[in-house]
């Protein structure tokens, strides 16, 4: 096909563009509404890292499962959660993906393959291994992705989980989003391995480094790892290097990053990069891309409206969901 970029279909490329833009605009609105006092609690933005979630999730089937983190909005949207339901969750409303009980950090929507998000750093990784075990034991050809940050690679949970996944050769891909910081802690001060990806050696699994701001590179790396997992060849560790533009969460926690580092990374915006390539290669026109941009703005506005208008759960309502009875 003439419209391919690196062998990818136009449809897929535009979908990746659209998803990244959706995440970007969604997160911008979250910041705005958080500041306006409409969104309670704590939340963590994904702006700047869109290439990772979108590249990885685009390489998955709908029935493959992902497990996410405190910084999970991007993963949820990339895997296909309706922005209305995600926004309603952030607003703490009954119509939210978790009925307002989970909030920003605990998205679950098995229908589209978002099985669970943990707010405990490293917490999802052992659970992801168990999900992969279930797939393997039932001889399903489904694959699991566990997302986590650079900081998470120093938790015991990471170590135990990757070891177990490897000895049991499970269909799982571990995606480390290395944005170089765990809150204020630079990866070079927290993580003794020369490169995070070197930790794959410890589990005798392939380790791959990828530019997380190049969504196509991410897609290709993920597709290879997913393929390997689906064929029963076991897990892979992917280290996707990227950067968060915002502060760790919604509060300013002080200065711990050099200005020019932030500026440098903003120049490597994953969305602009893809947009430029699509235009230069003639795969899409300005008009096409602008219409996606508008669609996204509309969808996010719609999500806000939906969230605002939805009802808040009360105590009796939430009590129903503790036990299966």
């Amino acid at each position, binding site marked *: 096909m003439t419209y391919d970029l690196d062998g990818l279909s136009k449809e897929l490329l535009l979908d990746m563009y659209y998803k990244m833009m959706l995440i970007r605009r969604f997160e911008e609105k979250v910041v705005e509404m958080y500041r306006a006092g409409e969104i309670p609690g704590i939340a963590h933005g994904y702006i700047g890292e869109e290439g990772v979630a979108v590249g990885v999730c685009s390489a998955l089937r709908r029935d493959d499962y992902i497990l996410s983190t405190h910084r999970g909005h991007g993963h949820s949207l990339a895997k296909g959660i309706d922005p209305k339901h995600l926004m309603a969750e952030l607003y703490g409303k009954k119509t939210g993906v978790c009925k307002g009980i989970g909030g920003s950090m605990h998205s679950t929507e098995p229908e589209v393959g978002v099985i669970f998000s943990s707010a405990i750093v490293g917490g999802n990784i*052992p659970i992801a291994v168990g999900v992969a075990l279930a797939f393997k034991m039932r001889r399903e050809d489904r694959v699991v992705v566990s997302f986590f940050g650079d900081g998470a690679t120093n938790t015991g949970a990471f170590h135990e*989980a990757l070891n177990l996944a490897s000895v049991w050769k499970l269909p799982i891909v571990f995606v480390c989003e290395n944005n170089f910081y765990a809150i204020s802690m630079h990866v070079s001060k927290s993580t003794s391995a020369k490169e995070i990806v070197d930790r794959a050696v410890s589990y005798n699994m392939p380790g791959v480094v990828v530019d997380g701001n190049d969504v196509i590179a991410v897609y290709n790396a993920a597709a290879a790892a997913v393929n390997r997992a689906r064929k029963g060849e076991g897990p892979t560790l992917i280290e996707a290097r990227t950067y968060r533009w915002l502060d760790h969460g919604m509060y300013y926690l002080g200065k711990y990053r050099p200005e020019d580092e932030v500026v440098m990374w903003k120049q490597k915006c994953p969305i602009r990069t893809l947009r430029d390539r699509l235009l230069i290669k003639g795969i899409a026109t300005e008009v096409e891309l602008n219409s996606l941009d508008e669609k996204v703005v509309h969808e996010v506005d719609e999500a806000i409206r939906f969230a605002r208008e939805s009802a808040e759960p009360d105590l009796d309502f939430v009590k129903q969901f503790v036990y299966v009875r």
Partner: protein
Amino acid sequence: MPVRELTYAEALREALREEMLRDDRVFLMGEDIGVIGGVFKVTQGLYEEFGQERVRDTPISETAIVGAAIGAAIAGMKPVAEIMYMDFLMCAGDQVINHLPKIRYMSGGKLKVPAVIRTQYGLYRYAAAQHSQFYPAFLMNIPGMYVEVPSTPYDAKGLLKSAIRDENPDIFIECAALYRVRGPVPDEDYVIPLGQADVKREGRDVTVFALSYMVHVALSAAQKLGNEGISTEVIDPRTLNPFDKKTLVESVKKTGRLVIIEPDHKTAGVGAEVAAIVAEEAYDYLKAPIVRLAADDIPPPFAPKAYNAFLPNEEKLISSIKKLIKHSK
């Protein structure tokens, strides 16, 4: 036809085996549970019968064991994971408190976590402070998971089967000192509903709330007290969550006296909750102060004499009951 007798360990093994035969989503995982059948031999023979896929030996990775059990459960399996000693359960502390009991809830009811975590505490094994702990009150304090504490082979089998069939997460706490104790276990399939205390002996003068191993101590004491004309009711909660308040409160309303005997630490132990319930709900019926007999508030010592004295026992129970009955006259 006399009822068949089994040991507590055999009863547990039967429960596991029957549920594995009944439902192929059920599988086992844990340290040394396969090839050698568990260090306490509870899973003996199951590896041979069901193979390494369904009886999975694991590395020493408690966090990964509990985490993987949770993951398999939310993906539709029914894992039964073993943590060799209750002391090591906190090596998986994050999974046990932040994940196991909260995932269903946090998902707004979209997920179920039908995982069972089996563990045991090592009473009278003289294995010192890191291999002798029992802290069920903590698991009772964290909502979202069921907690079983069987004291007999019959209860062990019936509760384990219920725990496996039920779709909520469970921490199933066995007692190593009971593994070889025998008791009647019917041939036919049965389950014990979770949340029903068992009146192990009826009585009029005093209620003894006895936890796990201490049920046997209480029954033996009750026998002796009976000879002296004191009628003792022995209540075995069997599950701590759900907790059967009704049986407890009704018993205390009847007897007017409560002695608690438990092998966990006294301060903030299970007995504290039991006493508090009674102080709230049967206050008007109490004829005497509530008495708690529990393990001392020190870590378990190794030296056997000190260790034995650290635990409550029959003698202390009998003398407490006698004193109590005097107090209220």
